[in-house]
Structure formats: structure tokens, C-alpha cells
């Protein structure tokens, strides 16, 4: 009876069923092999391109990779050059940011991104403080409060921290001021801002890092302040805490570099020799 039944089911199906019983395998795409020897940067039509041997680098969508800033192109070329046997795209944050900005896979407009950032303010990490535990609160007051003050002074806002679960109220005036500042940037730079905010879970820290008010590693430490505090009692696990810290630092550094290199231009005037 069983044999007859088996005959009715196509053979391949049986094989698949048998395989799936033995091993549960997740199907990842095979990593791309490093297919080039050298990387370089080309200047073409006012923009910089990256070449892998004789080929030009393209984005995942297939458009030509072009950036306005020379150091950014060099950084991307270096990142591709630093790949060993395989191209590990998940660890190339700077290239990934450039690709996202060029391809714009979610079709975000500037307004979308600014709205996203504005909606983040009431959930800003450093506006939520906790005074049940004195040591932790002292730490938060000493480390976070100066930055909130700096932000309010720099952008003319009146953000206030909250001590319980109710989110802080953000006046429409404050939102207008911040959105005005953000809208003065180009789309590329806004991608840097969004990436930084997503990394730090805080608008204020992200602005401080991009304004170079605090260094990247400091910003990441401040974003993980409570985690660092609890680590003192419960111990540090290398494959969780250190790994996440290094990843956040790499991501934030990439977004700070990206925002900077896209918004700064060096004008060069050369004297002509007569």
C-alpha cells in the first residue's frame, strides 16, 4: 500500500521531502568572488567614477556609480580593494550608502526623509531618562543633558527630556526649525542623516556627530549608555556587546563621512603662470 502511494507521488517531490527532513538549510545567495585585481578612480564630466580593472562600477540597480566628491570615490574604491576572496557587501557601509543614495530603492523624496526624521524626535533616546536608579540617572544627567542644551542652543529649539513613559512634546515651531535646517541639504546628505539616526536611535546624538561636536565612538557610547551601565553589573559578552558596538561605530562613521563629503566642496583657484 505504502509503495503504491509512493509511486503516485512524483519522485522529485519525495526527494525534496526526504532532504528537508534531514537538513534544514537556509538558502543564501553565494557571495560574489573578487573578480578584479585593481581598483581606481576616474574623473568624468564633473563626477568621479570607480573602476574595477577595466570595468566601471555599477550600482545594484545597474546605473553607473558616480559621486561628486573625490575622497568619497577614493574611499569606495579602497573599500572594494580591501575585499579579500569574496566581496562582502554587508560589511561595506560606505559603498552601501552611496548605492542607496544613487538608486533610491524606496523612491524617497526629500520631504519623506525630513518627515521621517521629524517623527523621530519624540522617541529620541536621550530625551527618555530614568530617575529610579540614582547612579544611572547621574550618568544620564552628566552625559546627555549638555548635548540637549547644545542642540537647543544650536538649532533654536526647546526640546525637553521626559522622566516617565509619556513622550516629550515637540512644538510645531521646533519642528519647523529643524525641518528648515534639514531641507537646506541635498538628498544625498539627508541619506547620511537618516542612516546616522537609525544607527544611534537619536536625532540629537546624530546631529552632534555629524556637526563634529562629539567623536563617533563617543556618540556610540552615549547611545549605548544604559547598556554600558548595566554591563558593569552583569558582565560583558564579547560576541554580543563588543560586536554591536563595533558595528554601530562603523555604521555611524560611514554616515558621518558620507554626509560630510557630500556637503563640503573645495573651491580651488589656481594662479595662471604668465
Amino acid at each position, binding site marked *: 500500500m505504502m509503495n503504491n502511494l509512493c509511486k503516485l507521488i512524483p519522485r522529485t517531490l519525495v526527494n525534496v521531502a526526504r532532504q528537508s527532513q534531514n537538513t534544514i538549510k537556509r538558502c543564501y545567495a553565494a557571495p560574489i568572488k573578487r573578480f578584479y585585481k585593481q581598483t581606481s578612480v576616474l574623473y568624468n564630466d564633473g563626477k568621479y567614477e570607480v573602476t574595477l580593472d577595466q570595468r566601471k562600477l555599477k550600482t545594484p540597480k545597474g546605473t553607473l556609480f558616480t559621486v561628486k566628491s573625490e575622497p568619497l570615490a577614493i574611499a569606495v574604491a*579602497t573599500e572594494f580593494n*580591501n575585499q579579500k576572496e569574496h566581496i562582502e557587501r554587508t560589511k561595506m557601509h560606505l559603498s552601501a550608502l552611496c548605492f542607496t543614495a544613487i538608486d533610491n530603492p524606496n523612491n524617497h523624496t526629500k520631504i519623506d526623509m525630513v518627515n521621517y526624521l521629524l517623527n523621530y524626535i519624540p522617541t529620541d533616546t536621550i530625551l527618555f531618562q530614568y530617575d529610579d536608579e540614582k547612579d544611572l540617572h547621574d550618568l544620564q544627567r552628566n552625559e546627555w543633558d549638555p548635548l540637549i542644551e547644545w542642540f537647543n542652543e544650536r538649532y533654536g529649539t526647546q526640546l525637553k527630556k521626559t522622566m516617565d513613559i509619556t513622550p516629550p512634546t515637540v512644538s510645531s515651531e521646533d519642528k519647523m526649525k529643524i525641518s528648515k535646517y534639514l531641507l537646506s541639504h541635498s538628498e544625498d546628505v539627508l541619506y547620511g542623516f537618516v542612516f546616522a539616526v537609525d544607527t544611534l536611535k537619536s536625532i540629537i546624538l546624530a546631529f552632534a556627530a555629524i556637526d563634529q561636536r562629539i567623536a563617533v565612538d563617543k556618540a556610540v557610547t552615549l547611545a549605548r549608555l544604559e547598556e554600558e551601565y548595566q554591563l558593569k553589573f552583569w558582565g560583558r559578552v564579547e560576541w554580543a556587546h563588543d560586536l554591536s558596538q563595533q558595528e554601530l561605530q562603523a555604521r555611524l562613521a560611514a554616515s558621518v563621512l558620507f554626509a560630510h563629503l557630500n556637503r563640503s566642496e573645495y573651491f580651488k583657484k589656481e594662479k595662471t603662470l604668465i
Partner: protein
Amino acid sequence: MAAVKTLRGLLAELRAASPNGCIKNNLASRYILAQYKKFQTTDQQLCKARDEALSLAQTYQTYLSSIRKYNELYKEFHGRGERTVRETADMVGFKLPHDPKD
């Protein structure tokens, strides 16, 4: 002084990251050295924040070193799939049936 320290750190990171460990003709190292020469007297420029060039260099150094450390941790701890029977036996100090007894 901080600038020189950053430069050394940056070059060391670039060397560690490059696949053959040589950055003589490296694009990034040449660009960074050229920038250092350009800002040798001062990096205070019109319409720029104080020490902007230096903090950019430090940011890039953080970027490279964080990626390196992340890779080291990842290599140490990431899952390599299921262990073989031999590996498991070695781990707990057992022998396989066909291993010589002694």
C-alpha cells in the same frame, strides 16, 4: 601632535585592511598624504568648522578600525554549521569506534 598620531593610525589601518599588506601605490594613502601636506600649516579654513580635516581623518580611522575589529570578532564567533562526529568526539575526549585503542 594629534594629527601625526591620526596619520600613523590611518596608514596602519589601511595597511592592515589591504589584501597584500602594501600601501605604497594605494589610492587612499596617497590622497591622505596629499591632504596632510595641503593642510600642513593649518586646517583652519573659511566657512569650515575648527579642526574639520582632522576630525574627518579621525572618523575615517574609526571606520576602518571598527570594521577590522568587527571582522575579527565575527571570524572568532560566527556559526560554522553543524560539527562533524569526529569534532564532537574530540571536544568531549571520546574516540571513534575505528580509532586505535591505547
